[in-house]
């Protein structure tokens, strides 16, 4: 009897619940996550300007990742959670 070994393994499945989406962006607080790549912050700040002009959103916090290769740290997540209704994450290069 030959036993076959599978060299692959799948990611661990974890339940992720998405936050409820706002029905209307008007007047909401905006958080930003920039990934430290070239122009990442410039792009997101321009976006924040557009959202302010169009919906009256106020940018309350921009989190800067340790590097593009790292996740957002827990302290930044806590700040974003406390100070933002909507968060936009983006990259530059």
């Amino acid at each position: 009897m030959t036993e076959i070994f599978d060299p692959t393994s799948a990611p661990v499945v974890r339940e992720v619940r998405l936050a409820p989406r706002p029905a209307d962006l008007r007047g909401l607080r905006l958080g930003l996550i920039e990934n430290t790549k070239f122009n990442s912050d410039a792009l997101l700040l321009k976006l924040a300007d557009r959202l302010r002009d169009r919906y009256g959103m106020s940018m309350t916090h921009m989190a800067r990742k340790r590097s593009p290769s790292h996740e957002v740290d827990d302290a930044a997540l806590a700040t974003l959670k406390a100070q933002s209704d909507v968060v936009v994450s983006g990259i530059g290069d």
Partner: protein
Amino acid sequence: MLAAGGLRGDEVFGEIPGRNTVVVADKVAVNAVLAGCRPEFFPVVAGAVKALCHPDFAYHGPASSTGGSAMVLVVNGPIVRRLGINAGNNLFGQGVRANATIGRAVRLTMMNVMQTQPGLFDRATLGNPGKYSFCFAENEDESPWEPFHVSRGLRREQSAVTVYASNSLYQIYNQLAATPEPLLRCFADALCNLGVPNVKGYSQALLVFAGEHSEVLAKSGWSRHDVATFIIEHARRPVADFKRAARLPGDPTAADETTPRAIFERPDDFLIVSAGGRAGSWSACLPGWGNKWTRPVTMPIEERS
């Protein structure tokens, strides 16, 4: 394979945040068999995979980037001789089973277990041949310096594997230099060309000095720190050069013509190793991936059996 490492199949080597990946010993062992490893190679494979999972390595970036990095494995300590890992002639080339299969086992594990399949979570534009396998040992017996792993805080009698992400290997030739300065100018020049990957921030580099160049450095008495300091000082060029080549934004100003931009910041951003054949005036430099967005990790190799 597992028995040779004294490992249980369910032992967890590490996790990759953001990918929901848990790396377990039995899957790594299957990939080591696929790669053609002898069982006694497995502790090196295990150490390298644990290093990839270390938070300092920040796996997701170098593994998935368009830059297409190889995961370079540098092995040190008594295990090198025992396993016959090549530290000499044809260092980066073919022909030695340990070098070929240890690196291959790590890459297969990345693809099969760590969700690093080309086109999916490996977005390399070109990749490089080192992505098949990239493993070598330091030639500790003929090095001008203490063993590389000792310089990184381990004991001489320990064995260790260092994992480092680099998207290219550039051979440096100099057959006339009899002192460190002219030799190292060649390294500095190669590491600050206009096409280097990283000019926004600072970089890191692996330097591999082979026989004749190692001899020059040994005779001079220069330390690793001396070598790194010299290259930091000389691997720089005017900001205007980078602007003319559109590597930095904007038009060059008069001040840019005389304002130097350094590529490197700190001596410990260099990994300096002695390895390769005795004959020939060749060495190599391997720029690191990203602006220090990943850090090399040196992991002790556990031999439990």
